[in-house]
């Protein structure tokens, strides 16, 4: 499918300029893109849950390379730090804590799979058609000064976007508190884990979120 689309894309792009710029960055982009897409596909189809997380690392890493190729270097490093570094680790912890089976699990996909495939293919076809139809002649000029250096990004972030930036920090704080509230076990209503919490009833009631669920530290 991707090759067919690539052919379409190439045919569309060929009208004004060639597929390739003099620097040949397209070749690198296409190769990394294929790897990224392949890793993504494997992520959503593999029957081994942990493997899915690892293939996700490959896909996200590939995206970081694509950012670099698009001269957005700051974003690229942020991508590596946050996604590859922390999100995937978080996901792995989640898999562990929910006692996900290691090895091939036969029921990784739900019964909804045919519908999901139909919807996904339809969405992909529609999006690719629209995107190619709209941007077939648009050319990105990568030859000028880099658009995403740390200096440029920092300047715009702390001049034009400082207010949303601060608001975002509040959002993060709220998410932090929310995650703690959600994951600490409440009271004795839940019989399944009341026994595990019975060792520290005073701490639970007395001192707020600090002694909350032990998996919380790992999650953060």
């Amino acid at each position, binding site marked *: 499918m991707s090759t067919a689309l690539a052919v379409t894309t190439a045919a569309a792009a060929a009208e004004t300029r060639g597929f390739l710029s003099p620097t040949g960055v397209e070749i690198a982009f296409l190769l990394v893109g294929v790897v990224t897409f392949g890793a993504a596909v494997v*992520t959503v189809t593999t029957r081994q849950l942990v493997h899915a997380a690892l293939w996700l690392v490959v896909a996200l890493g590939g995206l970081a390379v694509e950012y670099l190729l698009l001269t957005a270097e700051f974003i690229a490093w942020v991508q590596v730090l946050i996604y590859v570094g922390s999100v995937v680790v978080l996901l792995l912890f989640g898999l562990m804590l929910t006692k996900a089976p290691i090895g091939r699990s036969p029921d*990784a996909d739900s019964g909804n799979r045919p519908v999901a495939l139909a919807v996904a293919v339809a*969405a992909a076809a529609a999006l690719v058609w629209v995107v190619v139809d709209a*941007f077939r002649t648009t050319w990105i000029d990568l030859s000028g000064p880099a658009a995403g250096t740390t200096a440029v990004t920092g300047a*715009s972030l702390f001049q034009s976007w400082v207010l949303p930036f601060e608001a975002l920090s509040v959002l993060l704080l709220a998410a932090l508190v929310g995650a703690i509230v*959600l994951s600490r076990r409440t009271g004795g209503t839940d019989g399944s884990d009341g026994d595990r919490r019975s060792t520290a009833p005073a701490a639970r009631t007395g001192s707020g979120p600090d002694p909350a669920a032990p998996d919380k530290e790992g999650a*953060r």
Partner: protein
Amino acid sequence: MHLAYPAVLSALLFATGLYGVLARRNAILVLMSVELMLNAVNLNLVAFDVWLDGIARDTLHSGQALTLFTIAVAAAEIGIGLAIVLAVYRNRGTSDIDRLRDTAESGDDPDDAGPGTAAAAAEKAEATA
């Protein structure tokens, strides 16, 4: 470079993530698929920002700023999402999405009715698509 390259890659990644969201049974795998979809959007944002920077229409770098925000929000989302999944797992002993059917019409056995209704919905979806 043609803008179509990153745009098409982004569309394909988005569709892949969509498939994962709709087809995966484990809630954590669904979260991974959501991350894929978010990253597809991020790629779009960065590519369009670079394009607009090149033709000097946008000096605010709003695309990249938004990308950073999206990444931060995504990090928060994954934290909250995992907390929810853990809470559900603790309450229900499972994190399989298709077994969390409290909103179903009562009277049906949720496990037995699943494939049949899914097939019916599939027919419906194909008919409309």
